[in-house]
């Protein structure tokens, strides 16, 4: 597949790349709409309820979530640095930063798993629990997919699939990871701060 990609001229590659990028951005937009629909559903439930969270429902731990958020936001920065290292042809730094991103992503998922196992509420226990587990679970699934995406991209980069001018997979992985980060900003604010 890599050999086939190299047979395409630079002009052709750029044209195909711009289409792929646009397609990927449309995918991210559609994914944001999916999250937005669940977020608005949560806000509707919240506004319809006389008190929030409903009586007898415990809020999830704020400070653990804050630390977990910083782990995820930190991974966004390391992913950006990995992309910049690739653009500057620094392969060692690229590998280091992308591994750091994967480790931080796994750290975030571990923190979320810890939070899930220590919460007293359940998915079916209350409206708050249903919204919380649906939205954060859906986000966690996206992070898991992102970690798999990054591992694939790292292996592809090591196997020479990308070169200095043709690295759309890396760009897509970076945009996806930033998207996952940004969705968490909204979820952290909604469930822990607001």
């Amino acid at each position, binding site marked *: 597949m890599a050999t086939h990609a190299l047979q395409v001229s630079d002009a052709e590659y750029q044209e195909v790349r711009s289409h792929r990028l646009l397609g990927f951005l449309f995918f991210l937009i559609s994914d944001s709409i999916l999250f937005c629909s669940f977020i608005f559903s949560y806000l509707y439930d919240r506004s319809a309820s006389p008190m929030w969270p409903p009586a007898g429902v415990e809020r999830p731990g704020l400070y653990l979530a804050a630390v977990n958020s*910083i782990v995820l936001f930190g991974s966004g920065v390391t992913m*950006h640095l990995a992309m910049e290292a690739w653009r500057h042809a620094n392969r060692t730094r690229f590998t280091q930063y992308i591994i750091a991103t994967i480790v931080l992503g796994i750290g975030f998922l571990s923190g979320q798993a810890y939070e899930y196992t220590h919460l007293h509420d359940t998915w079916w226990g209350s409206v708050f629990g249903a919204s919380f587990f649906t939205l954060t679970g859906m986000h966690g699934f996206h992070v898991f997919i992102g970690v798999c995406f990054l591992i694939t991209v790292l292996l592809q980069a090591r196997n020479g699939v990308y070169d200095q001018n043709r690295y759309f997979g890396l760009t897509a992985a970076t945009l996806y990871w*930033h998207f996952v980060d940004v969705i968490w900003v909204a979820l952290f604010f909604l469930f*822990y*701060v607001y």
Partner: protein
Amino acid sequence: MDATLLLKIIAGAGALVVGYFAVKALYEEWPKTALEDQVTKIMMALLTLGCVIVLTVAFGIAGKV
């Protein structure tokens, strides 16, 4: 040390460090004009906002326990 205080310190210090790098990345991305760079600018700005939110939580200004 109290666990809550420790978590607050880690979150606050982490938010400062990550926020600094996010702003730096945003500053470096600013002159670039490609489509993915424009998206990255938006993402980095929102990441910075996330760090500010965590910072306010760490300082006890925002957040419900």
